[in-house]
C-alpha cells in the first residue's frame, strides 16, 4: 500500500486517523465563535456538533478518503456518492484535507485537490482542476496550505499552490499561485446604481 506523504502525516491511512481528524474538526467548530465557546466542550455539545451537516459531510469524506488510501476505492466512491446525495457536496475521495477543517455550508461545494490543516471552505466554493474532472484527479487540482480560507462563491482552478494563511474573499476566480499570508479580492464585484428598477420589474 503506497500512502502519500500528506496522508501519512495526517494518519489518513489509519482508522484512528478518522477519529482524531474528526475530533479536531469538532473542536474547531466548538471554538469558532464566542457563542460556541460558551456552550462548552462536553459530550452533549460534541455530539450535537457532530450531527450538523458540515461535520457529517466531512466525516463521510474522511471515511471515503480512508477507504481510498487503503485501496478500497469502490467502497470509497460509493460513500462519496452517498455524501453527494445527502449533502450535495462533491468532495472526491482522492482529495486530501488536513485536520480541523470547516465547510460551513456543504450544499453545492466542490473540492478536488489537497488542503492542509485548519482550512475553511465557505458556501458554494469550487476548488478543482481546470476543465472537467473525475473522481481520481486531485493531483490536477489546487494545493491549499495551512489555515487557508476560501470565501463563498469563489473558484480556485488548476494545479495551483496557495500558500499558508491565504484568505480568498467572496467571488474570486483565482488561477495563479499566491504567496504566504495575502488577501485576494475580486476587482469587479462592487455594484453601482444603474437606474430605476420600476420599469425593469414591470416589463
Amino acid at each position, binding site marked *: 500500500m503506497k500512502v502519500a506523504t500528506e496522508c501519512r502525516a495526517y494518519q489518513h491511512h489509519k482508522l484512528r486517523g478518522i477519529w482524531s481528524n474528526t475530533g479536531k474538526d469538532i473542536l474547531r467548530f466548538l471554538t469558532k465563535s464566542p457563542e460556541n465557546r460558551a456552550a462548552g466542550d462536553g459530550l452533549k455539545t460534541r455530539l450535537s456538533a457532530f450531527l450538523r451537516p458540515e461535520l457529517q459531510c466531512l466525516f463521510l469524506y474522511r471515511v471515503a478518503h480512508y477507504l481510498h488510501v487503503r485501496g478500497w*476505492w*469502490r467502497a470509497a*466512491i460509493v460513500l462519496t*456518492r452517498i455524501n*453527494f*446525495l445527502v449533502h*450535495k*457536496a*462533491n468532495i472526491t475521495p482522492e482529495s486530501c484535507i488536513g485536520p480541523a477543517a470547516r465547510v460551513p455550508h456543504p*450544499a*453545492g461545494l*466542490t473540492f478536488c485537490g489537497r488542503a492542509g490543516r485548519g482550512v475553511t471552505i465557505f458556501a*458554494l466554493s*469550487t476548488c*478543482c*482542476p*481546470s*476543465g*472537467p*474532472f*473525475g*473522481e*481520481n*484527479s486531485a493531483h*490536477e487540482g489546487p494545493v491549499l496550505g495551512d489555515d487557508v480560507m476560501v470565501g463563498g*462563491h469563489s*473558484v480556485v*482552478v488548476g494545479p495551483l499552490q496557495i500558500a499558508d*494563511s491565504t*484568505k480568498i474573499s467572496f*467571488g*474570486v*476566480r*483565482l*488561477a*495563479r499561485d*499566491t*504567496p504566504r*499570508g*495575502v*488577501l*485576494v*479580492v*475580486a*476587482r*469587479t464585484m462592487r455594484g453601482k446604481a444603474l437606474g430605476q428598477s420600476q*420599469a*425593469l*420589474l414591470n*416589463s
Partner: protein
Amino acid sequence: VPFDRLTWRQTLFRVRADYRRFIELHMRFRQRKPIAPVLHPSFISVFLYRVSNHFYRGGHKYIARFWWHVNHQLTGADISEPADFGEGLVIVNPAGMSIMAKSGRNLTLMPLSGLGGELGRREDVGAGPGLPVLGDDVVLEPFCGVLGPVRVGNRVVIRALTAVTKDVPDDTIIGVSDPKILERRESV
C-alpha cells in the same frame, strides 16, 4: 417554441453520446473507466433530463415534470424539460445547477454554471423568449452564466465568474480580470 417530437431511438442516441463523452472526459485523467458510471450523479442528471425532455417533446408535460422533479430531488440539478441540448452534454457537478437554453453538441457545464433568462429582455433568438442559444463545443467554467437572449458561437470558453449578456463570436475566451492580491494586516 415549437419542438420536434423525439423518438426513443433519437433520445437513446443522445444518451449514448452523452455517456461516451462522459467516459472520455474521465479517461483524460486516468486510463480507466469510472466505477459504475451510470450511477454517477453527473450522468444521472443528464439521463433524467433526456427522459423528461423526451416526454415534454412528446406532449406528456406532466410526466416530463415528474422526471424533472426526480432529477431535482436526486441530484439537485434544475434542468428545465423544454431546454434543448445537443448530444454530448456533460455536467460535472449537478448540485445547484439551473439551466434553461438551447445548445449545440458537446456542451460542458462545470459546477454551478447557469444558463437562462434575465429580467427585462424577452426577445426570442431561437430558444424561447429571453433565453440564450449556444453553439457547439462550448465550455462553461464554474460560476459563470449566459443570461438573456444572446447567441454564443462555437468553441467558446467562458471563464469562471463571468456573466455573458451580449453575443459572443466563435472561438473566443470570455473572462473577468484577475483578482487583486493584497498584503494582509494582522487585523484583517
